[in-house]
């Protein structure tokens, strides 16, 4: 059986979560590998959440927020940009492919965009293979 990656997606409440809702309402199909977690703002996503996801069995992590300038909280997503850039750097230094973490913008009207991101990310992570875990983990 081919490798089915597990991907955790942090969705901001105002844009991306609603974009994902819209994909559902429109009955588009998205990759079932992606498991959404709602946060109020992508700026709430602590780096440790991403690391925790990898530790708990994720092979990839998506962070989705409002487009720059459209943040419900004015500028939370700008903080996210910087945090994710630093975190990707850290992941590389730890020997983890930084493609396992991806930051994207999905607005409340972009159901189609949400869906394509889920497939793209699933394929991207499928190519990378299971997350390298020493002590097992669910994909161990």
């Amino acid at each position: 059986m081919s490798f089915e990656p597990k991907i955790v997606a942090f969705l901001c409440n105002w844009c991306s979560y609603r974009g994902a809702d819209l994909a559902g309402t429109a009955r588009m199909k998205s990759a079932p590998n992606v498991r959404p977690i709602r946060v109020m703002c992508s700026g709430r996503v602590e780096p440790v959440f991403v690391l925790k996801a990898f530790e708990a069995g994720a092979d990839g992590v998506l962070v989705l927020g409002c487009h720059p300038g459209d943040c419900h909280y004015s500028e939370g997503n700008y903080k996210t940009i910087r945090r994710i850039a630093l975190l990707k750097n850290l992941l590389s230094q730890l020997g983890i492919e930084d493609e396992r973490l991806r930051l994207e913008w999905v607005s409340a009207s972009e159901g189609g965009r949400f869906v394509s991101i889920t497939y793209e990310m699933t394929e991207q992570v499928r190519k990378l293979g299971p997350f390298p875990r020493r002590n097992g983990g669910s994909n161990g």
Partner: protein
Amino acid sequence: MEDKARIGVYICHCGSNIAGTVDTKEVAEFAQGLPSVVIAKDYMYMCSDPGQNMIKEDIKQLGLNRVVVASCSPTLHEHTFRQACQDAGLNPYLFEMANIREHCSWVTEDRDAATEKAKALVSAAVRRVFYQEPLEVREVPVNPSTLVVGGGIAGIQAALEIANAGHKVYLVERAPSIGGHMAQFDKTFPTLDCASCIFTPLLSAVGQHPNIELMTYSEVEELSGYIGNFKAKIRKRARYVDEDKCNGCGTCIEKCPWKAASEFDEGLTQRRAIYTPFAQAVPNVPVIDTEHCAYFLKGTCRACEKFCEAKAINFEQEDETVEVEVGAVIVATGYDSFDPSVISHYGYGRYDNVVTALQFERMCNASGPTQGKILLKDGSEPKSVAIIHCVGSRDKNYHKYCSRVCCMYSLKYSHLIREKVEDAEIYQFYIDMRCFGKGYEEFYERLSEEGVIFIRGKVGEVTNRALTEEEQGKLVVVAEDSLMSAIIRVPVDMVILSTALEARADAEAVARLFNISRSADGFFLERHPKLAPVATTTEGIFVVGCCQGPKDIPDTVAQASAAAARVLAVISKGKVEIEAAIAAIDEELCSGCKICNLLCPYSAISFDEEKEVSRVNEALCKGCGVCVAACPSGAITGKHFTTEQIMAEIEGVLV
């Protein structure tokens, strides 16, 4: 935790919406085995009364102290189930929702994959709810005043409804007069009511209403605060005419020697540099257009000042910023008309007798550029007119959407042409006739009997290159008649372009100003297309009329009244609940580094110099959690989105 967690889990079938793809029985059995779960059930419709009662009964009978419902999106029914919990005596923040419909059954084809994903989402919610804590919802009083932005039919209707109910309204309009697009119209479909006969009384009612403070030639520059307690900064642009002194006699306009193209007449006539947009303008106070006024351009003239008996002209006037406090905001900023010159093969701007819908509308109006006569540029009457539908609409090159009003106003034009030029040939080039409203299909039928020729087909070109004698000196409309499967050439004297309604050019900036979203077509996005069509994702901000999407006058008025009712509901309740899920700082842990002070977009965190710790102002915090994520000491808790809760959710979702 003080009490042992006792969790109840409820899996909704949503008819076949969920159960058609997800094995809800299997999910319920799975949930039953999760830690601290006392009871797990599946049921046809959890949001129904029996569904909600089931939860309430179980809370009481089984002593549940945590509830998870796996059903639709929390944006739809979180409130419903929180209320059910509260009714049964459980704090609403001890409820959690798993979205297994929009995020699972509706987006997944494979039943096994959908069931697995549903289990993961339920497991995440169960693990998360374990750590959830009761929160107190705070109530704050509501300011009973309302800000209405935009003085077209939408804004006017909303303002009058609220003002008539006895509450203060600030009505802000960018143009020198209220009226918007409707003031430009001659007749309204399908009743052919004279637009100004039904509209002018509303304009003057606004102008005279004791509860409406009208601010024309003004724009909202800044909005802060939250539902019940907004603060708006409004820039009142200098008119250079004192509103209190001016008696509206119009002498200044007569005497002004400088001219510019009239916006109101769509460039078909000229207005003076000091002007009121139209005769029934409210307020009936002119403005000086500094871009065309000789005094502002060259430093001389002042003819208006010389002849003004009321001494109302004031060249020294400056823009003024006023601040108002309101409880709710209604955004009614309207639409822009699509500029057809970008479709160069239709010849707008190149051929004299190719006009836009709004230009033709003005031409039909008795106070318009031709005093209501339908005339070609050379002053003669057209013997044949082509009306081209869907110019900029239903066209993937411009706007994919249907503008909803063009079929009907095109029919109206046919009638007006028939009325004014009895023997004119009238051609309608349409893709589909969309006559969906009350009395609309009947109007279409009536027009069909008035000798209008309907040609189904998209027009490829309007040209003056004649191929036959008959086409000499005419505008030739080249189209495919898709019912005949033939290319046809129709020579006419005049072409009317039924142009699309599009989002305002500055809609993006306005959306940011009011913190609302836009849909892919650029119009403002409603909170829910069916259940909350005038609300937005920001509580207390409503959208009405064409700024939310193209619509006709009846729909616009209905929306405006709906928004007014929503605002009045907030006002009459007198208080609003403020989000309890906000940040809190543990003073024991705070190192006083002030990182959070700078991060907060609402300046809700201040520094207590004496204790050397940061402190959250609960009224200002909106609970985004940016500070929580940034605190190096872990001293800030994001209530209802605590690190513990999210970590548990991550573990749960990866089961």
